[in-house]
Each structure stands twice: as C-alpha cells, then as structure tokens.
C-alpha cells in the first residue's frame, strides 16, 4: 500500500505535477487547526477533572483524583450508568426485532404504498428530535409513561427503528434473492429460509445496525431529556443537568462526570469501529436521502 503510494507519487512528480500545491498546504493547515482545537476542548475537560485548582494559569496548580469519587457519589453515576445501559441495550434489541423484518420486506417486495412506508421511515430521521420530541413527550406524559424508564425507551426507539430499517434495507438488497429461491426449490420451509439461509447472511448487517444504534442512543440527548424523570436519566442527560446547575458543585466534579461519559462513549465507539467504517456512521442516512 505505502509502496504503491510512493510509486504513484514518484510517477506524478515525473509528469511534472507539483508534489504539494499551496492549496493542499492551506487545507492541511486548516485541518490541523481544527484538530488542535478539538484536542484542546477534550483536554480541557480532562485537565480540569484532575485539578485541585485552576484559575489563571496554563495548567492546574495541582493534581488530584478526588473529584472522581465526589462525582461518582454526588451524581449517582453508578445508577445512571445502569440506566444508560438498560436503555441502550433495550433500544438496540427492540429496534432490531421491529426494524429488520420491515427492512426485509422493503428490500424484497414492491407493493402499493411502499413509497409512503419508506417516507414514514425517513421522516423520523430527517426531522430533528427536539422538533417532534415535545409533542411526543406531551403524549407520553398523558399516557403516564413520561418520566419512566419505559417512556425513555419508547422515545429513544422512535429514531432507532427507522434507522435500523434504513441501514438494513440496502444490506438485504445486496443479498442475492436467488439463494432464497434455490433453498425453496430444495424444499426449505419459510422459517427455515429465515433461520438457516438468510439469518447467517444478515448477521454482519445486524451487527453494524446494532452498533450504530448503540452509539446513537448513548449520545442521544434531546428525547431522553424531554421524557426522563428522576431515576430514568441517562448519562448524557444528567451531565446536562450538572453543567446547567454548575456552581452548586465544583467544576472539577462536573468535568470528572464528563470524562466518565466520554469514556463510555469512546468504548462503545471503539467497539463499533471494528465493524463499521467512520464514513458509514454518517452516510447511511445519506444513501437513502439521495434517492
């Protein structure tokens, strides 16, 4: 890979193409500037979480980890982490169970009303959560589900189910339908086709969809914020409340909580990136919109 790259470069230079144009330099400089700032943002949080005091110096005047135990106890991080995992894993499982069969139908069949069905799966992803979240939360509170764990899970499923459908549909489309036809010719029953033929073939797609939903659900703020009550807050929502009410507790404790949240997200992200590419995490939505 590197060798071919070097060879191409050499070939380019022989043909008189400039190795690096000023334009490329400018773009790289701007990108590095962006990365430096991004790094600064994240490092500020980490540095502050370990600071004894940090007012008007480049770095904190002393280092301590005591604010982690304070954050852990004061913000009830253990309960919050449990709630976050409960919500995230339930959402992943339920959205796969509901979404994958629908994706199969959309990938394999043409039927009247398919366009409408497609649109109804596209809208919850296109419309930002805060817009439909308030009517949804109002309704959930009317049904006495607001503020409960089930309410939070239901609200988080609203973008997750369509997302699974949109990720899985192109994935199933690229599985050759003749494999199913061949299995049927050999006498397989429909359930056998699903469990023994399609099942193993869609596992990579299910895996990708599950991980993408997991990353999204852990970070999804708006819908949980609108529907959660005390006891059903996920990590990102209690982080919001902690920052919102900053001044009650030392800023280091809030930063420590932010680091815990960051670690949770990054662990999920690292697992996810073993199965999906970074571009896939964004462009799944696009390929559908582009139709």
């Amino acid at each position, binding site marked *: 890979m590197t060798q071919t790259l070097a060879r191409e470069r050499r070939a380019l230079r022989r043909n008189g193409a400039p190795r690096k144009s000023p334009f490329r330099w400018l773009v790289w400089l701007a990108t590095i500037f962006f990365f430096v700032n991004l790094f600064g943002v994240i490092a500020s949080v980490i540095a502050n979480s370990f600071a004894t005091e940090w007012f008007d110096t480049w770095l904190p005047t002393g280092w301590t980890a005591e604010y982690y135990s304070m954050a852990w106890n004061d913000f009830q991080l253990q309960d919050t982490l449990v709630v976050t995992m409960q919500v995230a894993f339930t959402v992943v499982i339920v959205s796969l169970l509901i979404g994958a069969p*629908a994706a199969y139908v959309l990938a394999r069949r043409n039927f009247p009303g398919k366009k409408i069905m497609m649109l109804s799966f596209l809208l919850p992803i296109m419309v930002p959560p805060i817009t439909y979240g308030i009517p949804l939360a*109002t309704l959930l509170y009317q049904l006495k589900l607001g503020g409960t764990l089930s309410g939070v899970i239901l609200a988080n499923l609203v973008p997750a189910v369509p997302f699974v459908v949109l990720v899985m549909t192109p994935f199933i489309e690229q599985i050759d339908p003749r494999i199913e036809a061949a299995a*049927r010719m050999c006498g397989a029953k429909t359930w056998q086709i699903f469990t023994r033929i399609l099942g193993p073939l869609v596992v990579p797609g299910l895996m990708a969809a599950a991980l993408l939903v997991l990353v999204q659900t852990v970070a999804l*703020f708006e819908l949980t914020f609108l529907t959660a009550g005390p006891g059903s807050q996920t990590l990102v929502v209690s*982080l919001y409340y902690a920052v919102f009410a900053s001044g009650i507790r030392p800023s280091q404790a809030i930063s420590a909580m932010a680091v815990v949240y960051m670690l949770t997200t990054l662990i999920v992200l690292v697992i996810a990136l073993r199965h999906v590419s970074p571009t896939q*995490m964004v462009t799944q939505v696009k390929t559908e919109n582009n139709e």
Partner: protein
Amino acid sequence: MAALTTAGPSKSGLTPPPLQHLSLRHRLAERGLDRMIWLALPGFLFVLALFVYPAVYGIMLSFQPNDESGVFGNYVEFFTDKYLFDTIGNTFRIALPAALFNVMAAVPLALVMRGRVRGKRTINTILIVPISLGTVLVAEGLLTYLGPQGWLNRTLMAVGIIDEPLRLVHNMWGVIISLIITGFPFAFLLTLSYITGINPKMEEAASTLGAGPWQRFSKVTLPLVAPGLAITFCLTFVLAFSVFPSAVLLGNPAGDSHVLSVAASQAAFQRYDFPLATTISIITAVVELTVVALVLLWRSRMYRGSSAGKG
C-alpha cells in the same frame, strides 16, 4: 419478541391455498402483497403510533390554547410576542452561518482527501469522535476552552494577536463554534462520500481540453457534486436549526441565543404550557421544511445525471 412470532409466516406459500381464495390472493400476490408484508407491519405501526400520531396530536393540541384566546391563540401569541417571534431570527443567525461554513469548509478537505491519502482512516476516525460525543460534552468542554482563561484566549494573547480575551462564551459565538465542532465532521464525511462518487476521468478529460485547476473545479467537479452538497447543506442546517443543549449551556438563552428549541422547552417545562410548546415545535418544523424544500427545489434544477464510475 412478539413482533417476530406474530409476524413470522409460519405457513409458507408452498401449500396451494383453497381454490375459492386463489383468485384474490393471487391477484394481491401479483402486486407484491403476500403474507410477507406482515413482517413490515410492526415497524410501520410503530412509526405510526410514536411519530405520526404524536405529530397529529401536537397539531391538534396547538389549536387548543390553555387560555381562552381562540383556536389560533397560540399562533397569535407567538407572532405578536416580540420575545417569542425573535427566536426565528435568532435561530437563523446561528444556524445559517454554521451550516454554510460547515459545507464550504468540507469541500476543499474532501477534494484533498478523496485520493489515496496516508492516514485517511485515522483522520476519519478522529472526525467521528465529536459527532459521537454529542453536543452536551462539546459544550462542557468549550466552556473551559473558550472561556476568558481558556487555552484559546491564552494562546492568542501569548502570541500577541489580541490584548483582551475574546468573549466567546455566553453569547451566540460559542453556539456557532459548538455547531462547527460537531457539524463540520458530519458535513465533511457526507461530502467525501459524494466527491469520491465522481469519476476522476471527467476532470482528466477537462484537463486535456486545457482547463486549469480552478476551471476543473468550478466547471466540472462543482456542478457534479452540487446536488450532493445541497443534501449535505439540508442535513447540516436542520441539525444546526434545532440546536438545543449548546444554546442553553454555551450561549445566552435569554438573549441572542434564545432559539426556537429553547423557547419550546421553556414553554413546556417552565410554564407547563404544552399547547404553546407544541405550537413552537410545529413552527420550527414548518420553517425547517420550508428551507429544505427551497434548497431541494433549487437542487432539482441541477444536473443529476451519471457522474459515477471508478471513483
């Protein structure tokens, strides 16, 4: 689990159905309506129940104000109360520059990154980090980083570019910067996938006709990628338009970052006026969809033929 067991067609179409049903079932199957359709039902019903129904419910609720101000009372209140009405302008002032910047900055980087670049995957991975961290964490980090004693102001003062710290938090600048940190990677990764879809042979052809780098970009690449950029802009704009946590934490939610989402959540959770809150949500959605529709209308006039091939 129930979804699968009820929807899973246990009896296959293998056994021939009774004769008297054959014609109708046959005709339906011909149009693609066989038992397999039941598999899609749980998903469709779910979206109907938890997305379409709440939306309809919200629209009806918006016409039932809490006070006795008539059917359109909430809408009248929104458009006559200057503090509420100004939220539209505030939201545009934050979302439009952020979305435009994100899309315009994404194009040059995507142009450079479309070829074989060393460390491409690393760069993409770093870029996905702010997206998955989310706006709340970015807001919390920016509060320290952009603050008067933060590293950015310190560096700028140490270098001598500024004498006084820039005021970047608790106003709309902080909100715009947070939208760039989370929105730019999103716009870039989308743009990259569009630009790599363009066959580089087209630019080579233009090159043989004597086009310089700028002409190749403006006359060949840009027109081909423009429809994709329109979609990217729409998605980035919609994200920025619904900015919420950073507007509260990083902006000045009572002043220049009193955006639509902040007004809606204040109506719901401070005034407990849910009809007014849903009214503001509906107005947000209408404004958003209008902008998206205008951009898509403009997009429909662009060239959208094949630009694919080996990219």
